């Protein structure tokens, strides 16, 4: 696909967003106003600047990265507009900020490339740890930066700018930093981790000191789980790590260890935290616990079932009956109003993006770039799978965002930067 074709698809995605907002306005019985043009303009501005930055600073990058992300963003902008016009306005600001940061990233990398990233891997680990711990700051006090607890999980950071305050989930950025650290670390230690000189019964193990980072990241995930009580971020971080170490070594033993550790941590969380137990009930028996724990999932299923094949039409369903429809349950909201067709469009969009991402990783000759591309794509796929699977009851519900779709600035920024990195890597290793 040519660059020009790509730009055409981005404009088409902007058109989808504007058309969706038009339908929402008409379904609500309102008169057409500037919001339609504004949505179109913001979409074109955001994806257009990233597109131009790629043209200028990463011209050999894959052309299939931006279009699926733009489609997902477009559908989500229309749906968030339908659920909460105020939030839709904020989301558009975040979209511009995310695009701006991605442009900055592409500019920063354009001279010396991703090799510079590799150099600072331990800085990422440190920054990641600090960011993870920041929400534990006192929620009141003189500091301009404060922690905040929402729905039993302490994963929010509030930055007080005097005129207004910005809420941010550092976990969305930490996930990128972790991938970069691990890619750098594993590219270096790959052979040591793949060797297994130690033997215990029928199992062979690498040297214990080589295993140290494995245990360390598991410990960090546990801290996230226990201190912040955030099941989703914890599962994502640990899943990212296990996936990447497997990609680096090709040893299934790590997957086994990961599964055992995940299961034991999950069981511990189930016993320790009420809100984890509630989520378990919501997973196993949402309809029997309709009055409390299962309400959200049951409402989502009622909505999706009512939406059926073609959906109610955007603005004509009742996704507002689902608690947190604009964030964790955006998939169910779209499924209800756009129907099975809309759900499949989302799944196809993600599958395409993930396929492209892994394709880039497979093409890479450089080990670091390969691991980075694979890690970023894996994290993106895992995150989308965990939250959509939570809504569909394939896995327990974890409160993480659906990339490019859930309302929330940190998620948008994090995933845009992820796209920027993928684009840069594909530019450095052209097909």
């Amino acid at each position: 696909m040519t660059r020009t074709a790509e730009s055409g698809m981005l404009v088409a995605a902007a058109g989808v967003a504007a058309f969706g907002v038009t339908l929402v306005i008409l379904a609500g019985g309102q008169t057409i106003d500037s919001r339609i043009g504004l949505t179109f303009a913001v979409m074109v501005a955001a994806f257009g600047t990233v597109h131009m930055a790629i043209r200028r600073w990463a011209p050999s990058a894959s052309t299939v990265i931006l279009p699926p992300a733009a489609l997902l963003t477009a559908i989500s902008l229309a749906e968030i507009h339908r659920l909460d016009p105020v939030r839709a306005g904020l989301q558009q600001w975040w979209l511009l900020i995310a695009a701006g940061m991605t442009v900055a990233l592409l500019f920063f990398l354009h001279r010396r490339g991703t090799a510079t990233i590799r150099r600072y891997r331990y800085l990422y680990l440190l920054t990641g740890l600090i960011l993870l711990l920041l929400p534990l700051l006192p929620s009141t006090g003189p500091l301009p930066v404060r922690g905040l607890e929402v729905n039993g999980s302490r994963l929010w950071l509030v930055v007080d700018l005097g005129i207004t305050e910005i809420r941010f989930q550092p976990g969305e950025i930490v996930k990128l930093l972790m991938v970069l650290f691990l890619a750098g670390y594993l590219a270096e230690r790959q052979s040591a981790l793949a060797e297994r000189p130690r033997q215990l019964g029928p199992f062979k193990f690498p040297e214990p000191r080589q295993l140290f980072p494995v245990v360390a990241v598991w410990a960090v995930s546990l801290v996230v789980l226990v201190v912040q009580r955030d099941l989703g971020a914890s599962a994502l971080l640990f899943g990212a790590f296990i996936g990447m170490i497997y990609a680096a070594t090709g040893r299934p033993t790590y997957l086994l260890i990961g599964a055992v550790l995940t299961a034991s941590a999950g069981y511990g969380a189930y016993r320790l935290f009420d809100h984890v137990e509630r989520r378990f009930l919501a997973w196993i028996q949402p309809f029997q616990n309709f009055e409390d724990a299962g309400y959200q999932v049951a409402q989502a299923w009622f909505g999706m079932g009512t939406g059926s094949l073609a959906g109610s039409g955007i603005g004509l369903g009742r996704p507002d009956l689902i608690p947190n429809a604009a964030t964790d349950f955006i998939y169910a909201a779209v499924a209800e109003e756009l129907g099975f067709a809309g759900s499949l469009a989302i799944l196809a969009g993600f599958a395409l993006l993930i396929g492209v991402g892994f394709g880039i990783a497979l093409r890479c000759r450089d080990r670091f770039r390969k691991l980075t591309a694979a890690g970023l794509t894996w994290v993106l796929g895992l995150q989308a799978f965990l939250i959509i699977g939570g809504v569909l009851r394939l896995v327990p519900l974890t409160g993480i965002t659906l990339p490019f779709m859930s309302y929330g600035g940190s998620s948008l920024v994090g995933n845009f930067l992820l796209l920027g990195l993928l684009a840069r890597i594909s530019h450095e290793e052209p097909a």
Partner: protein
Amino acid sequence: MNRPTRRLAAAVLIGFALLGLMTTWVQVVAADTYRLDPRNARFNLTQIGKERGLIVSADSVVLAQSDPDPATTGSFIRSYPTGPVFANVVGYSSLLFGEQGLERAYSDDLRSRRDLTISDLLSVILGRDLRPLNLQLTLTDSLQRIAFEALGGQAGSVVALDPTTGAILAMVSTPSYDPNLLVGVDAAAHWQTLLADPGRPLADRATRELYPPGSTFKTVVSAAAFETGLANPESTFPDEASFQLPGSTATVDNAGGTNCSNGVTTSLLNAFVRSCNATFARLAIAVGAEPIGQVAEGLGFNQELPFTWTVAESAFLTDELSADLAALGQSGIGERDVRATPLQMALVAGAVANQGVVMSPYLVGRTFDADGAEVDTSELAIFGTAFTPETAALLTQMMERVVTEGTGRQAAVPGVRVAGKTGTATGVEGRPHAWFIGFAPVEAPTIAVAVFVEAGGSAGESASGGAVAAPIASQVISGWLNR
């Protein structure tokens, strides 16, 4: 190291395939389960103002209809022209309080198919009719009104059915309520008033409330005695005013504390006609719990009756009574461990009228579409056989004498042979429940009826089945036969 990366990619894409399959399940395969779940407000919200089908009586009186809403074009308001008379049968379809009665049981037939779902669009393309279906009941408006008015504001129930088919001809529960109040403005306030009413107007006394059937249960004990060959109407028993229950200090006494006959012996026929409790307590113990339970279960006790909605399960606690003879004696006169709905007791009368065969009761005669073309007719179903035609004949003989010369004389209808049995059961605070079950005409029965007046009705403590319930049965039977 491309191999593990490929595997990761495969794992994620398999994960997304699973998401696709799961979405297919929720939105396509099982979509209707979730769409129509009663807790899913979305479906009800789409039904606001939609047209629903007619419900008409067997004599073509409209019981429920959808009228065009004068305020909103294309919108409809549900109304119930007969108000409280059919409330327990027709029920209501209310946005706030859901559905009840036939409105609930036949909701799927009565609702409009114009839902704009894909399957509806397909139906339009295939030329299917999306207009709601209509119901014609087996109940007649004329008989329902006679029964409703015969109860005269007393709490109670009348159930009349055709013993040869099981078709319900009238089914009244009082005090009733006006279903129109639950669909209009101020519905919530009316609902609260109905809930707070001590007369419990929302309770369906015909099918969903259980009462001791009193002496009407003597028909079941007699049937068991005939079936086992232990007695016939001419069998004699010691005549006593009071029967000492075995292993207990309690007694079972005749009404008024008098003898049943000459003070020496009484025939079973005489004891039945005069409803002597002492004799039936003795008889029940002699027959035993098992045979009585067998006949009772053949009539529908101890199980869920096949019906349009879930009915209360009438009970005869066979196992407990096998071990407790004193309780068995008391249960022989329809007290202690016996409970029944008026519908169940109408089936008992119907079984006697239909040579021991119990027909499954039903309310809807046929469904027809908007053009009046028949869509479905009810098929008759035999529920079971409770006893032999010989036993039925003996019971008929005894029950006819109850009306000609016994406790049920007020059930008589001039020029018609009526058979029946009265019951006066433990009620509320000394005010007994009054019962009558019967059928007519004896030579070729076309109606079987159960009348129940709660807590003596307006007669209060002096009430009896013969004085309070039997006259109502007489009005219902003559109303049916002279229609």
